[in-house]
């Protein structure tokens, strides 16, 4: 397998829970700077794949490499986040008892150690970045509000904003437009296109219109392994894909 520019490389990854194989010999290569959509029916292993990449779940067997050298299976979640891998959850997960501003402040790239945080001061540099991000995600007016008071779509945006400010190289977005209005979905697609320039992006999505709008290479997962890969038209024409997913 050619992995000359692989930003993320999974090979033969298997994860089983009580005998059920959530991932079954999954192999996947995401190139540097690539935008990749991942689709698949419920239970195909999309979230488990995210869990393996971000260190939440350790695979039973298989290789998971970042930047070709770093073995992600040896690291825990904070260490992997520190490498520059950011994750957006399926259900928007923000810190509801902190303000929008404080959520972004915590996401800012800075030393994460507890004692450093105890004496940390917010630099004007970070403040400016937070202001920029607030503008990008259209939440400048709500900066002082608790994140818990935001609408569903706004929480999704705040979470994306947290990924932006975190300065991650590789972004894993789990259903970024779930629960969004059409207008919000469109804005999100725009945002992802802007991010594409200097990030590697993996987007897990159910919404076919959105996947089409992204216009990226698509990987179809089924029962824990890759069923098909290619352009959206290519996979939609694939008979097996139609059977397990699209045809229903």
């Amino acid at each position, binding site marked *: 397998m050619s992995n000359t520019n692989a930003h993320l490389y999974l090979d033969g990854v298997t994860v089983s829970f009580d005998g059920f194989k959530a991932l079954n010999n999954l192999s996947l290569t995401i190139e540097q700077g690539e935008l990749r959509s991942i689709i698949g029916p419920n239970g195909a292993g999309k979230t488990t794949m995210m869990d393996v990449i971000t260190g939440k779940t350790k695979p039973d067997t298989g290789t998971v490499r970042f930047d070709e050298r770093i073995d992600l299976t040896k690291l825990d979640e904070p260490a992997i986040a520190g490498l520059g891998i950011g994750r957006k959850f399926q259900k928007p997960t*923000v*810190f509801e008892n902190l*303000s929008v*501003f404080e959520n972004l402040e915590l996401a800012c790239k800075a030393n994460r150690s507890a004692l450093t*945080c105890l004496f*940390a001061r917010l630099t*004007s540099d970070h403040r400016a970045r937070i202001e920029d991000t607030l503008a990008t995600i259209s939440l400048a007016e709500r900066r002082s*509000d608790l994140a818990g*008071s935001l609408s569903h779509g706004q929480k999704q945006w705040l979470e994306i904003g947290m990924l932006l400010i975190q300065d991650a190289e590789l972004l894993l977005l789990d259903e970024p437009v779930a629960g969004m209005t059409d207008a919000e979905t469109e804005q999100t697609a725009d945002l992802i296109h802007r991010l594409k320039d200097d990030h590697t992006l993996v987007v897990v999505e159910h919404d076919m219109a959105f996947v089409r709008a992204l216009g990226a290479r698509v990987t179809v997962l089924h029962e824990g392994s890759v069923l098909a890969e290619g352009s959206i038209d290519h996979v939609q024409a694939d008979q097996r894909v139609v059977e397990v997913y699209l045809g229903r």
Partner: protein
Amino acid sequence: MEASRQPLLTQAGWARFVLAVFAAAICVPALNLALDPSSNAHVPDYLIPLLGKYLCFALLAISLDLVWGYAGILSLGHGAFFALGGYAMGMHMMRAIGDRGVYGNPDLPDFMVFLNYQELPWYWLGFDQFGFAVVMAFLVPGLLAFAFGWLAFRSRITGVYFSIISQAMVYALMLAFFRNDFGFGGNNGLTDFKDILGFELSAPGTRMALYMLSVFALAGGYLVCRFIVTSKLGRVMLAVKDAEPRARFLGYRPANAKVVAFTASAMLAGIAGALYVPQVGIINPSEFSPAVSIEIAIWVAIGGRGSLYGAIFGAILVNVAKSYLTGVAAETWLFFLGALFIFVTLLLPKGLVGAATEMRRIGDWLDPSRRAREAGYHV
């Protein structure tokens, strides 16, 4: 590069803080010393150590609120840290008795003579020095909390499971301290103290000084807690309480933040214990009983979690009620405490302080940004 942090207290907060310290540190002594004992407003001598005791409990309560209200760690073993601080100070005062004990042994406390100890156990060495005892009063609880917290939080033990093992910890310590051969006076604990730094404990002046120290310890402890909760670490603690996995995927190590908070909290509890023992004159293993630790959580729940001053309020309120009720009708106290706890849990989930805040908000519309604006931070 310009950098800033959230202020420790708002201007109004500082005003209230200074007012409270002033009232406790100036008015109480003035009402005790300057007024004629026959006056209605006179604070009698016997009340001074009682008030000092309430303040020690208030310091213990804010130490619990720091971890429970801000990091979501419900420790039901905080009595252990308090008691260990108390034992450290008790050991110093035992040593200070010298040859004035019943047996007149200058090297061994009475209970050791009684139990046929030949020499002082090694862990009693150094406690003849006041400074050493003071350091131990917060170092020992701090080390215990660090070790216990590191093991528990690193293993991702949270919520009710943590509460249960913290109960087990305090219970295990109680059993150990009950043993005569453990070297801390067994069942009777440490008592019959005579003086501290040469000042007679029963003298009104000493009692007033201990009371004043309690005032300043509580004020200092409050500011330390404010420093932690207004720091970025304080926001990491709230984040961990809200969504621990999210904090982890953002690159934070929740276990480390919790260990720092838990250790700081245990040290404050130890200081509270060290101030408590000279004012009540005894420390025994009953302070390690699980029920005592649960009661601390009840003070905080009643006062209101996550505000610090709510914990102070709750601790003082419950203990004043306890002193009063156990005086007039001792058998009703536990029923009263139980009823109060149920009432507050069911009807005022944010405690009395939280309920007062909600009431104030009814007039000015439920405004979620209030906290951020009050902090005067990014406005």
